[in-house]
């Protein structure tokens, strides 16, 4: 078997992404994906041992990118911290609580004993995100708008508060999809309590 190449891997991911979008996860098959890129089924399986694994990679890549954009848009120069956090929270939860991201996170925990995907995804996506949010909050601590303290913990508390009404419901399948208005409410309540706890008075 030929050595794996990054170009080939990306081509598979692209094809898989198209197939998933066109027919959905359930109806997508490894054969459809292989048909789109050519080559043998053995080669495809050599890159991705299962449809689940492929789905995870495709969605993880897409969602990580969207999360990076959301956190990248944080404007540390703003004078309206509340508005900035509301805006960020809305984007953050819209990405995380899209059906695809919910499925990926569920899979990551469900498969964590058998697969390293969840661990890798946490290290690649969550850790840098926490760092950037911490960096953002640290600026406001320096400017005296937030209480001085451990910015990493503040970031973790903020991100957790944003998710607090949704995380368990989503993982337990009680919540299958989240409407934009529901996200707005959750973000407003989370930001309010975060600022009450962290704003300098």
């Amino acid at each position, binding site marked *: 078997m030929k050595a794996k190449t990054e170009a080939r891997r990306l081509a598979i991911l692209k094809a898989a992404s198209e197939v998933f979008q066109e027919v959905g996860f359930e109806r997508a098959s490894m054969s459809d994906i292989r048909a789109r890129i050519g080559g043998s089924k053995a080669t495809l399986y050599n890159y991705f041992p299962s449809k689940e694994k492929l789905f995870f990679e495709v969605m993880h890549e897409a969602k990580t990118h969207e999360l990076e954009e959301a956190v990248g848009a944080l404007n540390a120069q703003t004078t309206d911290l509340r508005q900035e956090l509301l805006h960020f929270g809305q984007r953050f939860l819209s990405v995380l609580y899209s059906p695809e991201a919910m499925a990926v996170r*569920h899979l*990551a*925990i*469900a*498969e*964590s*004993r058998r697969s*390293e995907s*969840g*661990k890798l*995804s*946490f*290290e690649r996506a*969550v850790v840098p995100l926490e760092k950037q949010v911490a960096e953002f909050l640290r600026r406001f601590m320096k400017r005296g708008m937030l*209480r001085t*303290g*451990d910015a990493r*913990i503040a970031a*973790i*508390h903020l*991100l*957790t*508060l944003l*998710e*607090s*009404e949704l*995380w*368990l*419901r989503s*993982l*337990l*399948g*009680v919540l299958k999809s989240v409407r934009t208005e529901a996200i707005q409410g959750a973000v407003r*309540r*989370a930001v309010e*309590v*975060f600022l*009450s*706890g*962290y704003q300098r*008075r």
Partner: protein
Amino acid sequence: MQIRKSDTKRQAIVETAYRLFRAQGFDKTSMAEVTAQVGGSKATVYSYFSSKEELFVECMMAALGNYMPGSLKHLDGSRADPRAPLLNFGSSVLEFICSTEQLEVRRLIIAEAARSGTGKLFFDKITALRAQLSAFLAACMALGSLRQADPDLAAEQLGAMLEAEMLEPLLLQVRENTPDRNETTRAARRAVDAFLRAYAPSSWPALQDTHRSN
């Protein structure tokens, strides 16, 4: 969740099934195997639990329910100064949640919940347990030691903040060592302090900056 101590057969079924579910997961465990290990007939097992799903929920909730009273008793403390009761409750819950056994239970619950439709059952039971924290917070709000707010939301937020630093990394095995009591206590303190500042009554300046997190 209640296992009546007199009901030894029922308890034997739950204990055996719990062991099997933990060792091999939901799919690979069958009612026949549970029956074979407990002894007796399949009909007997089914007279206690009408389906494997029901037995699964019972087992997982027993693992939670048998311990929770220990944590919840801390909420008998003073509502006039909720910091100590909440710290004790928080440390105790966090230590429990981060134990290897409970992490395994969580993973099993999450893996199964969406597929077998048991998620709602778990969610309701977890909500029922959290109701005791809500009741404590509501009493504090009534007394003025916390500001007026939705106690259910506050309980949900406190729960999330307690778990925030450790649960997801542990579930995903980003970290594998179980946090020791020292670490869980410190995380609980950071969560409780942030929570108390957020819910401090406006006329209660003492809570604002006296308890610094470290």
